[in-house]
């Protein structure tokens, strides 16, 4: 009997190690393009992300058509001319947190992380690395990162007529409040 209880206690101890998957469906992805001519900003609050804190595997997904712009015209141009969102409806990141062993999700703290993986935008997949932060506070886990993207790398053509209005490099910011996967 004692053995069984000990055995159960052992298994119970092991469980957290198996269920370290966290996710969100309410992640935020935003980007800015600032030139002297024009300030362009867009936000998407419907990004999904899954992280396995046991292995460091991380995935992000975002629907291009769910980005919100202040001006309708910018939103239309973004979707129709630049991102061709009917042809390529989503952008994804698949990769991992390289230094996952340094992140202790059962201990409050701010953990700097290195992300490495493939960023898929506009039907073009490119390897990327980025710095990020995982914050653990009172059992809640959140994450953020910033990635600079060169539009030309993703075959996003800006017509020469408006090339002064749109930055060649765009900063993409991502944030997420993660929930435990049940």
């Amino acid at each position: 009997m004692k053995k069984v209880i000990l055995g159960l206690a052992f298994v119970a101890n092991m469980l957290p190690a198996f269920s370290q998957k966290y996710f969100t469906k309410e992640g935020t992805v935003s980007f800015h393009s600032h030139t002297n001519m024009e300030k362009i900003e867009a936000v998407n609050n419907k990004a999904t992300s899954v992280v396995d804190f046991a292995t460091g595997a991380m995935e992000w997904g975002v629907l291009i058509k769910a980005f919100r712009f202040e001006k309708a015209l910018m939103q239309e141009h973004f979707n129709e001319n630049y991102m061709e969102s009917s042809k390529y409806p989503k952008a994804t990141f698949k990769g991992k947190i390289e230094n996952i062993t340094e992140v202790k999700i059962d201990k409050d703290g701010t953990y700097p992380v290195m992300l490495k993986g493939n960023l898929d935008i506009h039907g073009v997949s490119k390897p990327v690395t980025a710095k990020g932060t995982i914050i653990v506070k009172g059992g809640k886990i959140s994450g953020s990162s910033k990635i600079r993207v060169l539009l030309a790398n993703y075959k996003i053509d800006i017509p020469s007529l408006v090339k002064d209005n749109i930055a060649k490099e765009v900063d993409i910011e991502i944030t997420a409040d993660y929930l435990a996967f049940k």
Partner: protein
Amino acid sequence: MKKIIYIVIILGILGAGFGYYHYNRPVSSLSGSSADISLTPNDLLTAFESNETEANGKYLDKVIQVSGQVSKVEVSAGKTSVYLKTSNEMSSVICEMEDGFDPAMASTGTNITIKGKCTGYLMDVVLVQAVVVK
């Protein structure tokens, strides 16, 4: 001759005014437009789960009206999202409501009819700029 100059000036001003208005025009609300397609949250999700490419061709950018049970109401960063239940426990139809939506208008467990613009499928089907029909 003077008359023609005046007309040209007035047309110029109108044109510039229209251009400026067009450039600054905000994203328009869906409340006035009627839905292109009406179906259940389950049928919408199943369409994307079984053939995403085909469903994208059929539903992207369309105003879709869905009636179903509210499984969750989520407020984050000032935006309200109403989750509609499907037979798949992991996936829903998520309706991101338009700005200014009162979260009290939707409560978990009740039935609701919502229309919104379809943006595609990740883990769920996402409708944006959504408004309550009833």
